């Protein structure tokens, strides 16, 4: 590590420690845990943008797919729902997949005017068969005690398995997008990813049989013990007393530290892999393609193929981070996925940290997440100062104080533009 890297990481560590001393250790650990997850997301985006120059604006969608994986893997299965219509729903999905496969095969095998006609008829007829099979199953599943379940549930497996599964789901979506939009203009990938993100969220909000929609899935299993169990464990209480802590504080800190350790382990593994990839011949090839596609193609490199590969890898990392985040929350709330929070904030992290530098992406993840959390208290303090001279109850004062919440977007936009303009290589430039 260079001295610049050490100093900047030390500064971020000091900031987080500072919020621990000034606010509370609970806040500091919350920032640390989400900072770790943000760092993983920005590592994934850095793979796409920093290594390969691909512009992905659908990070929210891949993160949400990770969250979906957590539900599908770890939620307890709802036996009655499966009995009522589970197989029918699965059958419907299989029919849908079969129709698409048949259409693709027909498109490849046939030629001329017949081709368009056959594919069109296949898709239209297939769609109605799909709806006929699928809808009845969905209605049956959603009718099973909708207030508490009303969905199929998951597999009931340990929640840690969901993390790689989240990566796989995101990779699948990325393959679909990459196949259509890569190899065209760079902006097209941006618009296609923007679309897939909106659609993933729309599906999660509306397909109640899958995710309970806006009713949210709560109480997902955890990889760590519950606070209340720790408080009732005499051994734990005794050890906490040894540190001079009361059981309640000790248990919340313990659980948060546990999550922190798990997340840090994932981050270290992914960071090591990314660093190895960056320094390998593969990484050099990627950067060569990024810097001059024409030359790389002339050297016999399969540009579109490599782009597809790295796009899938980066999206998979975002999916893993999404699964981790849902695990940390213990619940899936589809309506909480906001593009400004999940897509554009991660971009700010990558650009500020230094695109093309893995350590930079990690640094940006921590730093920007810290700012995102702390801008609001700082902003309201600042606003309090500005409005201090105004008379109480004046319209402007009330309006300014209410609008502090929107300061975040302004600040993030400003940070992004300033860094792009005056230090486009970020805090830790690519080497």
């Amino acid at each position, binding site marked *: 590590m260079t001295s610049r890297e050490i100093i900047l990481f030390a500064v971020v560590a000091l900031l987080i420690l500072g919020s621990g001393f000034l606010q509370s250790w609970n806040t500091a650990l919350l920032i640390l845990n989400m900072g770790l997850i943000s760092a993983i997301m920005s590592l994934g985006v850095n793979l796409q943008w920093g290594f390969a120059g691909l512009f992905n604006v659908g990070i929210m969608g891949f993160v949400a797919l990770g969250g979906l994986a957590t539900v599908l893997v770890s939620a307890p299965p709802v036996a009655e729902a499966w009995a009522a219509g589970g197989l029918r729903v699965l059958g419907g999905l299989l029919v849908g997949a079969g129709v698409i496969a048949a259409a693709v095969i027909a498109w490849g095998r046939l030629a001329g005017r017949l081709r368009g006609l056959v594919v069109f008829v296949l898709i239209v007829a297939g769609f109605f068969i799909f709806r006929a099979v699928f809808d009845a199953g969905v209605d049956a599943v959603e009718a099973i005690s909708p207030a508490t379940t009303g969905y199929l549930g998951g597999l009931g497996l340990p929640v840690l398995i969901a993390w790689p599964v989240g990566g796989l789901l995101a990779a699948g979506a990325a393959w679909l997008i990459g196949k*259509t939009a890569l190899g*065209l203009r760079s*902006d*097209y990938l941006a*618009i*296609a990813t923007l*679309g897939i993100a909106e659609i993933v969220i729309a599906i999660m909000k509306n397909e109640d049989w899958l995710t309970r929609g806006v009713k949210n899935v709560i109480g997902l299993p955890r990889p760590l013990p519950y606070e209340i169990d720790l408080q009732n464990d005499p051994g734990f209480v005794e050890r906490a007393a040894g540190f001079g802590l009361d059981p309640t504080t000790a248990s919340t800190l313990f659980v948060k530290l546990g999550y922190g350790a798990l997340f840090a382990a994932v981050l270290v593994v992914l960071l090591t892999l990314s660093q190895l990839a960056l320094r390998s011949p593969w990484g050099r090839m990627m950067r060569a393609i990024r810097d001059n596609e024409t030359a790389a193609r002339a050297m016999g490199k399969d540009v579109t193929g490599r782009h597809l590969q790295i796009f899938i890898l980066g999206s998979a990392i975002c999916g893993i981070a999404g699964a981790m985040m849902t695990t940390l929350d213990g619940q899936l709330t589809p309506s909480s996925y906001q593009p400004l929070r999940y897509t554009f904030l991660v*971009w700010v992290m990558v650009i500020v940290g230094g695109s093309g530098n893995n350590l930079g992406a990690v640094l940006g993840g921590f730093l920007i997440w810290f700012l995102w959390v702390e801008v609001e208290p700082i902003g309201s303090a600042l606003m309090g100062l500005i409005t201090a001279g105004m008379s109480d109850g004046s319209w402007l004062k009330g309006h300014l104080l209410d609008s502090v919440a929107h300061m975040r977007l302004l600040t993030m*936009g400003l940070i992004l*533009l300033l860094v792009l303009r005056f230090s486009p290589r970020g805090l830790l430039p690519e080497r």
Partner: protein
Amino acid sequence: MMDLLNGLITLANFVLIPALAYGSQLALGALGVTLIYGILRFSNFAHGDTMAFGTMVVVLVTWAMQAAGISLGPLPTALLALPFGIAGAAAMVLLTDRAVYRFYRAQKAKPVILVIVSMGVMFIYNGVTRFIIGPEDQRFADGERFIISARDFKAMTGLDEGLAIKSTQAITLVTAVVVVALLFWFLNRTRTGKSMRAYSDNEDLALLSGINPERVVLVTWLLVAALATVAGTLYGLDKSFKPFTYFQLLLPIFASAIVGGLGSPVGAIAGGFVIAFSEVGITYAWKKVLVYMMPGPLEPDGLVQLLSTEYKFAVSFMILLIVLLFRPTGLFRGKSV
């Protein structure tokens, strides 16, 4: 025969007229995107929020006018406030261009850098809009609500089905036609418009023949501000004004511009209507129309709704994917590959 007429009226009431109004709004939005793409050569992610910002100014001026007792009678006051909104949006985009985009233009930065920059601009516009007017829904439509209400139509024609034409829908169509006519007259007949097209077709050749690029860019931003504000205000009058909805409109607007062919104004209009009609058509429950149109035994049992309305974004996305797969340059052969 009566059944057929009733079916047609239902179709017009629930599909044709709403889609026509929505299509005009999308077309105006897509024209802005396509102009920026043609002249400045990047996809402007801040376009939705430019619309929101311009509309916000219109809303504020409308409120002030309503408070002062100024109105247009049966027409919404917002039409009177429109010039102020356009001026506000124009000031905002010109300021942005001076402070942000000009630097990258001088550097000849890659388009993708400009796209990222426009994302930062989007953040700021979004923050400013929310800061001033807040993230909630705002209603600012006034004047007559309907030209023909469903009940009057039934009384007039004696049919079972009513045809309601909201005044905002009619205003949308009329305004869109006027704006588009003006735009095409400007692009095809005036000297400045011709120089813009020349610059879009071949930058180097245009520069050689003495066209001032900064002037072209300036005029483009003015046009874009006007188009965005008009599109945003019409959408807001027709539905309601909520900043986040305008961000979400970005996807159908981009889809319209790409389906038509990025950089092609005619394409943007065609694309807007293709997207609007597919969105409304696919998310409409066709049962009522089909019951009228079909002979008895063929009448459907279900709602015959292909997709629920929450998936309207999925429709524009699917069309976008199909176009990208089979005809990446769009229907009207835009310049992009």
